[in-house]
């Protein structure tokens, strides 16, 4: 398990850095502007693997739905596309994306909480 996870991290990272070196060589200016993003990606993946492997088995179903809700963070991109003055077709694409993400946010968090509310110990709630 641990091996595989490490392997996954290395793989993601290797892919990312391989592709990263390519455009930088091609364009002389601002070649390194994406490096911070790569760092953030790499560190985020490390945190993801660290945090997820600690999640109790008991809660794997709610985990699936909460990550589902969190991945609807695409809402940020949708707002930035739908919001400003753009040709109507772009605005429509953005609005559809916004609707889709909003649905995921609402249903994802609500269903997670609904499931978690069910988990109780002998000593009652919580």
């Amino acid at each position, binding site marked *: 398990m641990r091996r595989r996870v490490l392997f996954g991290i290395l793989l993601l990272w290797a892919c990312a850095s391989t592709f990263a070196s390519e455009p930088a060589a091609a364009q002389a200016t601002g070649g390194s502007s*994406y490096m911070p993003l790569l760092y953030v990606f790499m560190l985020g993946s490390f945190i993801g693997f660290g945090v997820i492997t600690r999640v109790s088995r008991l809660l794997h*179903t709610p985990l699936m739905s909460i990550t589902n809700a969190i*991945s609807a963070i695409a809402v940020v*991109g949708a*707002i930035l596309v739908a919001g400003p003055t753009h040709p109507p077709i772009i605005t429509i694409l*953005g609005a559809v994306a*916004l609707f889709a993400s909003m649905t995921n946010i*609402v*249903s994802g968090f609500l269903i997670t909480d609904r499931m978690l509310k069910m988990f109780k110990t*002998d000593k009652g709630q919580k």
Partner: protein
Amino acid sequence: MGSSFVPTVMDLAYLAGTALFIFALYWMNDPKTARRGVFAGVAGMTLAVVGTLLAPGLVNWEWIAVAVVLGFAVGIPLSRVPLTAVPQRTALSHAFGGLAAGLVGVAKYYLWLAESPEQLTHFRMFAISAEVILGFLTLTGSLMAAGKLQEVKWIPQRPVTYPLQNASNLLLFAIAIVCGLLMVIDPIGYSYLFPVIIVLALAFGVLLIIPIGGADMPTVISLLNSYAGLAAVAMGFVLDNKLLIVAGALDGSSGLILSIIMCKAMNRSFSNVLFGAFGQVQAKAVGVEERTVKSETPEGAAQVMEQASRVVIVPGYGMAVAQAQHRVRELYDILTKKGVDVKFAIHPVAGRMPGHMNVLLAEADIPYDHLVEMDDINPEMGQTDVVLVIGANDVVNPAARHDKSSPIYGMPIIDADKARMCLAIKRSMNPGFAGIENELYFSESTYMLFGDAKAVVGELVKALSGGGGGH
């Protein structure tokens, strides 16, 4: 101060949102803190949305409002689905996630192409291609998965295979990658390839799922979760947004880890799940010699359990289908009241999604500290008087331990056969998910209770409460 201040509030909102998302997942490590995790997630999302709405230049407020309201209108009912439909719901929502990522990628590409082509750097174009391919692939793939799980008529449940399937899929994917690379090299000149990429990604999502059996969908859904996360990461690279990258990376790793856990608990490899067309051999496995099966009446079973001092209940997919968890709760209560020590043995892949049994039993108010994981309960199996298997099959199949030719050989199981006596509730002698016979049901010490799980457990409860008499 005025306009230069707003981006900073936005930046800080994103930074705080990132931290909150991490805490949200961190707190999921324990049922005691898990609801705090949801709270952190909601807070993070709120910060992200509000921070984005503060961005300068937003004007289409009506569009935004309509989309948000519609999102709530669809999202609230979607959160009320019965627990058995959670896998489908999850798949559907990955489809939505893929759609959103794909559409944003398309919009961004055409916007930059029309307004400021110099913004389409090689790196950005690479990120856009990745976002669009992952997004649209996730869209159709998840829709197919949801369809298979919901058992929609016109989507075949069984794996569909045809000659050269893997080769032709690979070819298709290679074409998409080549188109993507060409666009990275010249984002403007090759702009006509963009729709091609979209169509290929949509088609690839369908073709990828067709050869996978309905029963392997949970693993696939988890992988699609990972893809949806990576699409969000790609979007983050496109929009230069670190919050998106971290949130996407968290999802990406979550999906990957859950599917690894499932594969491990089934003792199968990724490639076997994705390309193995598992489940189509099912029809062949008949025609072995007839063996005798003993069955028992609910009344007899109730008597046996009443006299036991330790009972272990092994729930499986059948309990989920029959929605028998509330009856099981009644059974648990009445046995406990009679002084019997009752525990639940939870196999990691019992049911059809990771943690499925835990949620179902929690729904029926069974305290989660009575749910014991496989590895912890197995050593106690020898001292157990009665094991009650409710609609489980593969997870208690002893063939996994010794029969090298069995497709589930090597999968860790709950050692129900080691208990003094085994009672098994199922409707027939039909096999379970893996399509193979279970020798446990032919064993000396096993008695079958045929019937629907909900009905049989109900009768057990009736017999126990009617029979009365302390222990």
